């Protein structure tokens, strides 16, 4: 389709999703666990991932291997388990789950896979893994993407996005934009990160890890908790193929940069606010139309403060808001996908969840953080994200 063509009428529907964290291996399991106030972050006693104890949210390794072995046996019995890295197992299970619950054909040339990650095969960095079946060049994110794409016989090479902690939300926006531009009909947005000492030590060096499970937006917050995770979400211009009965669309989105500092936010929240304002404008919505916000809310002092300022600046201070990171930590490249999938589950199920870890308001601009689960009709939901490199992103999901 040409550059001048009119594509304004195309709706991009969100469909089936999968989420994998310490809380489980499907979106439904996550909803059930969150409803029961289960927290997946626990104190890692010290070992390969960190020399000292630190709270982490880790995917259950035995369950991962069991599920993957079973999946492989059913689908590709000629392949050995040790041919796959931990990250690849997570992504394959996650993508396979949404393919099962939607009518999207991954082999269709009109279908694209977009992958969002910080480090992909984080455990291959430094060449420490010595499994002959695993080619070390899968440490390259494009190669990791190509491997995943060819596993599913995808006709297009996956696009890999690596834009710090906004990668997941940005991948959803990129998918939606490419569909609206007429380039593809369906996009499978998947992404995630495993945890190794690489990430844990790095965040420790920044002193950004809390000694206790994180407390986003709380007065006593003192850092984030890292979480392993993977998520997948379907985007399509055809609602009937999406795998969910509700009609929910990506109505708007935007990404901005602070142009201020490489590892800290612009504390006025201005660029973050601009991303939110633009996302609302594209969705043709006023701040009062937003029913619920799934915030980035990492639990670090400055980032939560900045986000509260940006939300308040945008006139969203009264909107019920939560951060899912109190349940399963900051899942890095997966965060935007997992949290969007859960926000969309809230829209579908008419229930919004308390922000785990939050007790007392602790930002200079007070925003409406959920302290209890609530029943609520959510027609319009805002998802926000921000990250290192001064990047901010916002997406609006809308029931039609």
């Amino acid at each position: 389709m040409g550059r001048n063509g009119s594509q304004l009428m195309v709706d991009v529907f969100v469909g089936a999703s999968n989420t994998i964290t310490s809380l489980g291996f499907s979106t439904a399991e996550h909803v059930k666990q969150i409803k029961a106030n289960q927290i997946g972050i626990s104190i890692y006693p010290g070992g390969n991932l960190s020399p000292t104890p630190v709270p982490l949210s880790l995917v259950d390794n035995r369950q991962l291997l069991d599920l993957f072995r079973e999946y492989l046996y059913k689908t590709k019995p000629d392949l050995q388990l040790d041919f796959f890295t931990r990250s690849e197992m997570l992504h394959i299970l996650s993508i396979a789950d949404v393919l099962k619950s939607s009518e999207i054909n991954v082999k269709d040339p009109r279908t694209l896979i977009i992958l969002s990650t910080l480090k992909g095969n984080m455990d291959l960095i430094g060449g420490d893994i010595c499994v002959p079946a695993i080619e070390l060049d899968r440490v390259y994110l494009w190669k990791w993407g190509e491997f995943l794409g060819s596993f599913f016989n995808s006709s297009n090479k996956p696009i890999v996005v690596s834009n710090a902690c906004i990668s997941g939300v940005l991948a959803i926006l990129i998918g939606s934009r490419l569909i609206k531009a007429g380039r593809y009909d369906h996009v499978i947005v998947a992404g995630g990160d495993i945890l190794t000492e690489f990430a844990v030590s790095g965040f420790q060096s920044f002193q950004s890890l809390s000694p206790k499970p994180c407390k986003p937006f709380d007065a006593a917050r003192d850092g984030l908790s890292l979480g392993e995770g993977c998520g997948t979400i379907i985007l399509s211009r055809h609602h009937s193929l999406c795998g969910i009965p509700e009609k929910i669309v990506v109505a708007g989105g935007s990404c901005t940069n602070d142009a201020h500092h490489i590892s800290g936010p612009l504390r006025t929240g201005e660029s973050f606010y601009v991303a939110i304002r633009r996302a609302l404008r594209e969705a043709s919505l006023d701040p009062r139309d937003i029913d619920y916000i799934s915030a980035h809310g990492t639990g670090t002092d400055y980032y939560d403060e900045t986000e509260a300022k940006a939300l308040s600046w945008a006139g969203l201070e009264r909107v019920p808001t939560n951060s899912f990171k109190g349940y399963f930590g900051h899942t890095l490249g997966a965060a935007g996908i997992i949290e969007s999938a859960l926000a969309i589950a809230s829209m579908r199920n008419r229930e919004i969840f308390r922000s785990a870890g939050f007790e007392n308001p602790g930002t200079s601009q007070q925003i409406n953080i959920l302290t209890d689960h609530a029943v609520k009709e959510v027609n319009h939901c805002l998802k926000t994200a921000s990250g290192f490199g001064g990047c901010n992103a916002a997406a609006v999901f809308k029931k039609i």
Partner: protein
Amino acid sequence: MELFITRYMKLQDHRVSLNGIVEHASEAESVDALFRSLYRYYHIDYPKFSKMDNLCKLAFLSAEILLQGTDVIQKYPAEQIGIILENASSSLDYDQKHQESIRDRNQYFPSPSVFVYTIPNIMVAEIAIRHKVKGENTVFISEQFDPELIDHYVSELFRNQRVSCCLAGWIECYGDHYQSFLFVIEQEDNIKRFEGLQEYVILNPLNMEKLYKGKSI
């Protein structure tokens, strides 16, 4: 609405070219020495440069070479300028360095000044900070320069007025291997308004590929 590449630069094999014309060749013996010599050659005064990893240095220098002495992007509001970059090795150059620093438990001193460079979009941030660019920004990882992806995505950004100007290209640096190809994309009506349409290159995958490979259009 046609989009044009209004300015482009390349840095590879120790040679710098601007708009297709080689303007500097260096005899430097290493990548580090090359980046230091270019910093001096272009009379750049930016103390933070020395703290950057090589990927960011390459991105920063490429943007300097592309934009020095022009107001090509300052004509636009900061929020309307985008940066869309691609590379193959992400930030593996510094990823390895960070991993090595934590390998020995007795020498376990991960440095925040190394770890911050273990995500590729820090190169976007360095350009954004220097040139006050606040719009859409993304790093894609692809095996090779992928002009089609840039064409598809940047065209969408312009069509929906998400950007009025965009820096795009390929910034790859891993060990001794480096290559950059960075360009400015503007749209027809703005170019006409500002300076009259000259012989600019129409943005499409074929033209990008030709400029990248140093062929004439």
